[in-house]
């Protein structure tokens, strides 16, 4: 299997907080991670473990202080304009808060056409049909294309965000806590939908979450981030076995399925 995206020795630090600009705070250190074509990886960790920063580095939205991100073997920093366009089309992300991730002034159709305009060679005349396809693909009525995000429910906007990420038929989609804050029926629905997409198109996923249940249900393997380092990693099947204390803490935090059983 070839890797879509590879992180080699990634490190990132932010300037210290406060008036006196203390020592830089290291957020990520020595991260090595490879995501193969069609593979589904869960990146788990507590709030503040550096998960979201890692997602942003992998997407090329921020530059790492150390190490490199490789897209199909090529360094992101060394990509020319055409290469950057290919990378953006191939690696997409769904953001955490669906409603704030869409421009409230733009209709759904325009939101979905944005990646089509910038990242594909699809002629503009073909956009409406593709938008309708995309909406249908996430279980939304194609007539919603004319609506503004404010006129949709939270679950519908979340699916619009997912449809936008799928617009360029990417090879890898990063979900940054995009499932964690939904209620259980919606979580199950969206995970099932993603699993179907994976079967149909062979899309790879990186699921960033603090919920071990979601990781276990959806991913092939789990990578645990603790204080900016990868502290544990394990396959999900036949059974997920994690040993590092930071990982155990996350596993133990899963609430009981039934009352009366801790």
């Amino acid at each position: 299997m070839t890797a879509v995206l590879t992180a080699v020795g990634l490190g990132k630090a932010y300037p210290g907080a406060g008036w006196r600009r203390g020592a830089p705070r290291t957020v990520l250190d020595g991260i090595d991670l490879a995501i193969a074509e069609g593979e589904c990886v869960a990146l788990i960790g507590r709030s503040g473990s550096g998960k979201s920063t890692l997602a942003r580095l992998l997407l090329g939205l921020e530059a790492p202080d150390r190490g490199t991100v490789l897209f199909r073997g090529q360094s992101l920093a060394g990509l020319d304009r055409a290469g950057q366009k290919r990378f953006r089309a191939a690696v997409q992300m769904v953001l955490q808060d669906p409603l704030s991730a869409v421009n409230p002034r733009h209709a759904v159709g325009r939101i979905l056409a944005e990646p089509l305009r910038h990242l594909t060679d699809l002629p503009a005349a073909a956009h409406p049909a593709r938008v309708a396809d995309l909406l249908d693909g996430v279980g939304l009525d194609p007539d919603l294309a004319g609506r503004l995000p404010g006129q949709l429910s939270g679950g519908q906007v979340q699916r619009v965000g997912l449809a936008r990420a799928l617009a360029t038929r990417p090879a890898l989609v990063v979900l940054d806590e995009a499932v964690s804050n939904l209620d259980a029926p919606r979580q199950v629905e969206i995970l099932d939908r993603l699993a179907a997409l994976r079967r149909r198109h062979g899309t790879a996923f990186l699921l960033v979450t603090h919920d071990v249940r979601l990781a276990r249900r959806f991913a092939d393997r789990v990578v645990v981030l603790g204080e900016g380092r990868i502290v544990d990693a394990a396959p999900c099947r036949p059974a997920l076995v994690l040993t590092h204390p930071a990982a155990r803490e996350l596993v133990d935090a899963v609430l009981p399925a039934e009352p009366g059983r801790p």
Partner: protein
Amino acid sequence: METWREARRGREAVPLVRDATLELRAGEVLALVGASGSGKSLACAALLGVLPPGTRRTGGRVLLDGADAEPASLRGRAVACVLQAPRTAFNPLRTIGDHAGETLAVAGLRGAPGRAARDAAFAAAGLGDDPRWPDLYPFQMSGGMLQRAMIALALLSGAPFLIADEPTTDLDLVAQGRILDLLARLVRERGLGLLIVTHDLGVVARLADRVAVMEAGRIVETAPAAALFSEPAAPATRALLAAHRALHEIPA
């Protein structure tokens, strides 16, 4: 035993919550569950008399110890509340100590006894270990710490009932577990009556004695927690349970 009863609230022509009757007892945890948009938070807001603009209560009563009570007069005295997004509930320009002072003033506690009560409440909420907490500003605290501070303020008000609206939704699971442990301990040790609003049946399984399930603005089922999990009656309950269990199982 204290009871509240309320029914029929609506918004203009569209009723959002109807015939919702909840009974909360001291020393007991009642969970109000339902999918997003089922009217859980609105029902709570009506109970507290803090309905959002554009909605109003069209009917129903709130009873405290069997006597009619005005929702607004309960707030901060008989009932304290903990909200979903702790960061927006605090004034960013004032320290946690300032916020505690405000609550003390409402409760009529001043001087040394006030400070003692304050320190006791924050210690009970698990913030006592850190001597700097009164001087911290909200932005210097994590979500879990802020939620603890909010619970401490609720304790400080001395109210026998606590309403927690999705108190752990914005926290990671580890922080969530600790907050739930804290709430369970407070109910046990202080005999608080806790109404917890949540969409997560895991929270219910961890904490609740009784459960009320809400769907489309109506309470469709009320049952002891164990009975609800073993013999769900309403279709809405079964749908929630099916999704909840699906998340726990591991597909082959």
